[in-house]
């Protein structure tokens, strides 16, 4: 599912980045882990429930200013959709169930 540009993706429950300073950066998920390279780490670090998809795209377009902006956008949308299909990302900022306020 491709995300709306104004939604604020965040890591799903049970998914988290390992700490900085480890040998390699990974996204922990229930029963698996995803090794992250430069751009994928830059994207996931910004899935904090505060930034919109549009903001994430703009920031990465600035970060990778030599790349074609349209390509950066489509790569990010594709990556976010994949992570969502793997249950690693929530797209809705309005958490109807299991919000962070719950214990």
């Amino acid at each position, binding site marked *: *599912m491709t995300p709306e540009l104004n939604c604020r993706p965040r890591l*799903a*429950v*049970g*998914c*988290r980045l*390992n*700490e900085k300073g*480890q*040998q390699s950066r*990974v996204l*922990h998920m*229930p*029963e698996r*882990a995803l090794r992250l390279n430069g751009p994928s780490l830059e994207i996931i670090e910004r899935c904090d429930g505060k930034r919109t998809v549009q903001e994430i795209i703009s920031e990465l377009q600035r970060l990778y200013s030599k790349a074609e902006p349209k390509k950066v956008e489509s790569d990010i949308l594709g990556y976010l959709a994949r992570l*969502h*299909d*793997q*249950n690693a990302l929530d797209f809705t900022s309005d958490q109807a*169930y*299991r919000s*962070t306020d*719950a*214990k």
Partner: protein
Amino acid sequence: MTPAAPTPLALIAELTHRCPLHCVYCSNPLELGRRADELSTEVWSRVFREAAEAGVLQVDFTGGEPLTRPDLVDLVRAARGTGLYVSLITSGLPLDEARLDELVQAGLDHIQLSFQGAREESANEISGTKAHAHKLRVLDWLKRRRVALTLNFVIHRSNIDQLEEMLALGESSCAGRIEFANVQYYGWAFANRENLLPTRDQLDRSVELLKRAEERLRGKIHVEFVVPDYYAKYPKACMGGWGQKLMLITPNGDALPCHAAQIIPDLHFDNLKDRSLREIWEKSEAFEKFRGEEWMPEPCKSCDRRARDFGGCRCQAFLLAGDAASTDPVCCLAPQRFKVDAILAGLNGPAAESFVKPSWLYRPSPA
């Protein structure tokens, strides 16, 4: 010469063999470890540090029932403190809401809650305990807490026809994953195999049903299905390869390359009380024994699939063929495949529909 050891990725910590359940397919060894021999909080904490330093990403707390350890909250905190991803594999007994809160606050990332079925009576028969109703309460508590949940249904002949009900239970919970794991035949399950192995018809129906469920639930709940490998054409890539990814530690600290490895005769296991995790991983006899491809017989040695399934499971090779260094007999290319075929033929023959009520061999409580 065996190749250099790869980086271990996961630690399976069998904290105890104590368990309030007596499941007829328990993967624990027939000879259960004693409480008095269990590793202390301090040794486990050191092991978690050494594991994280060696590159391990996640630890699965299992048993027996990990909740029977009074220091479980401390162990979760110690493991999470090293950066490890912490999973609790549990029956949900004994658990109350206050302890669940403590576990979540200590940094527990993920709970895998096991169910013996969707119907109370048959589930309780399998676990030899009145456990089902309590598990439903635990499911309810989990809805109000921020911790990932996998529901695990252990599948066998007498509950494989309840998959629809199990799916409904899973969908009404807050699980992000539902596993339908057919029993694998080691330990107590090997002893009860005659009463557990599903028929081919049952298996075919279940594969169809779960394929549809997987598509319907994509993006919402991840559905995982593990088939009984006796029915497979090729063996499973047991443990991701011997000594390649995982280390299992028994309650008394023995380091094993696989859950069932202790059944293999003349294999010596080092203990975490005596040596460091890295030293054992890289140099111990048990991990070196079947690491890589050096040990492989034909047809594995020249097989295109050898880097994919590693010749299958060493413990199953021993159980079915009497030789841990032989090709896993579930492989269609294995010289001993006829033994698996004979087991399946007996089950799927003309008398297959007339099963009598099974008499189970229940797993006891350890000393």
